[in-house]
């Protein structure tokens, strides 16, 4: 068993109202110095050892992320 993390983020040129809402609210709550917030998705997968990197890349690209609007990163972590 291996643990795999996939982070999916809106592309930089895409407006991210969720992140922006957080960024706008922080100063009102007294938190200064946060200049930008972007919000995406974080997936944690438990995968069998025989699942190779190519398969993981495919899962991320065709399924977990939508390449039209999102970027993504796949990484294996120690469980």
């Amino acid at each position, binding site marked *: 068993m291996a643990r795999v993390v996939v982070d999916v983020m809106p592309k930089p040129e895409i407006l991210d*109202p969720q992140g922006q809402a957080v960024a706008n609210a922080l100063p009102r709550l007294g938190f200064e110095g946060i200049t930008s917030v972007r919000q995406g998705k974080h997936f944690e997968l438990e995968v069998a050892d025989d699942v190779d990197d190519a398969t993981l890349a495919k899962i991320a690209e065709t399924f977990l992320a939508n390449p*039209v*609007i999102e970027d993504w990163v796949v990484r294996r972590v120690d469980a």
Partner: protein
Amino acid sequence: MKIGVITFPGTLDDTDAQRAARYVDAEAVALWHADADLHGVDAVIVPGGFSYGDYLRAGAIARFAPVMRSVVEAAGKGMPVLGICNGFQILCEAGLLPGAMLRNAGLHFVCRDQWLRVENNTTAWSSRYEQGAEIIVPVKNMDGRYTASQATLDELEGEGRVVFRYVGVNPNGSCNDIAGITSANGRIVGLMPHPEHAIDALTGPSDDGLGMFYSALDAVVTA
């Protein structure tokens, strides 16, 4: 004339789309997500709802359903296909229409009676409207902000492929006020607002939505 209406797990507006088909005297045929057979229909509606809960991304899971393979194939041969709301999202995810839908700019679910302008009355789903006509149809969605790359937007605008545009209020922050678009051949249309909820003034703000279903009848007859 048979209009197929797909049901995925989590589809909500399938019975409404079927009713709309019946209102224009078409035969409504229920299509099941797991069944690749289109049962001889002449046109397909991918209705609204939250297929698979839309938990990953609206339409992301539904597009892999067996029935969608058949829809993509039939669309390739020119069958009229209409994607409404979640159906529009599914058509984009399936690559039948360009672009993608994001969370509404206001971050809330929005349900309202929405004015739209008909920008292109030459598609399989809009021929019964007058060019430039303004219609009122409900819009209701969480992820309705249409987005595409600048190149895609330029192409859509240049080729007149924006079919419906929001008038007055842009309810979700869609690029260029886009409410609905069509494929290059004008047979596939996707829109966020719900024409199937505007077929009778008793249960909707108007019956302006009927035009889309009547248009499909014409498209099939003249094809």
